[in-house]
């Protein structure tokens, strides 16, 4: 008994230059916002970019990008539709934004299915919005995608960073490259996260201040791209490209 889907995942991604998983140790640190803004920023710089929402039980990039009424085209697989210039794929196309109560093995199976049938074609970057933690999605990405790199998001809280440290330790043990740590939602600069990242031999990419305007931009990428948050994410681009 062999799963034929595993054989073609590499081929589906062979024309993608860079694959970056935007990850975190725990939820609520702004991963989806960072992933969406990062994808849009890269596209704005002239790159071809895909965005894959892999947080199957709690997808949210469709809310940030205002995706409604779209469906992938079916042609020798499925072709992700263009959303604000990004090739975009999310389970919400199939769950119709209803609750998807999936256990680990189901999450894994759904990930394999989507990776096997989605035709990303040529992309400079594929940004993946990951579910938090060290669960199935993280382990599957490490297992299935050669050359994947992780961008790790944290808040200034020790609670968030303690979970990040575990993620970084796992990635280091498995020799998975880490682009660096982004400190998100900063309200009072402290230097704590930078110090911790240095101790963990991980690049500290910078602080992104808490942006009170951000909530108002949901579903409107023009407004999103005018925020202080978005400009902070744009400043990360040299690190993303250069690493």
């Amino acid at each position, binding site marked *: *008994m*062999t799963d*034929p*889907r595993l054989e*073609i995942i590499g081929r589906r991604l062979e024309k993608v230059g860079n694959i970056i998983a935007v990850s975190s140790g725990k939820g609520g640190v702004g991963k989806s916002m960072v992933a969406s803004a990062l994808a849009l920023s890269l596209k704005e710089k002239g790159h071809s970019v895909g965005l894959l929402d892999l947080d199957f039980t709690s997808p949210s990039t469709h809310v940030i990008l205002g995706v409604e009424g779209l469906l992938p085209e079916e042609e020798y697989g499925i072709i992700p539709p263009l959303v604000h210039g990004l090739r975009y794929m999310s389970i919400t196309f199939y*769950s119709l934004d*209803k609750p*998807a*109560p999936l256990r680990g093995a189901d999450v894994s199976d*759904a990930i394999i299915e989507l990776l096997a049938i989605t035709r990303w074609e040529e992309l400079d970057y594929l940004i993946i919005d990951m579910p938090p933690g060290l669960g199935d999605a993280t382990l599957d990405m490490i297992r299935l995608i050669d050359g994947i790199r992780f961008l790790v998001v944290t808040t200034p809280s020790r609670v968030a960073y303690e979970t990040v440290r575990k993620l970084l330790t796992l990635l280091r043990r498995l020799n998975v490259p880490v682009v660096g740590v982004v400190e998100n939602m900063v309200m009072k600069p402290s230097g704590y996260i930078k110090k911790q990242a240095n101790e963990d031999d991980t690049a500290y990419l910078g602080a992104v201040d808490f942006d009170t305007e951000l909530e108002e931009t949901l579903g409107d990428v023009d407004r999103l791209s005018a925020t202080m948050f978005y400009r902070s994410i744009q400043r990360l681009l040299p690190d993303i490209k250069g690493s």
Partner: protein
Amino acid sequence: MHEWALAEGVVQTADRIAGEQGLDEIVEVTVKIGELQQIEHEILEFALEQLRTPTMKNAKFTLESVPGKLKCRVCDEEWRFSPKDMDEDASEAIHFVPEVAHVYVRCPKCGSPDFQVLEGRGVILTSIRGVKKDD
């Protein structure tokens, strides 16, 4: 026609296994197809015919249907399931990603969406038969 994408996986996997086993020619490829995914057998068969590699140029592709069998994790109810009778959107969604069945299907006894797909999920390569030239 995402059957083509799955056919590509079957052909490549069969080729790899033949290489690993030192087979010079593949005679038969057997694929089990779970009803949950509602794969069009004719399209899959056509795709396999089109994608066949030199190693399997005379191979017979045998496709076997496996009925969907689900088991509730809450009350242990087991039931046969086919998405054929569901509304079109739900049925098509399950066709692409069978796991979204958890969005649309409930245990007929207790109503829970927490069930296990025991049999009949998707496409599985069950066996290949081939020959070595020095056999």
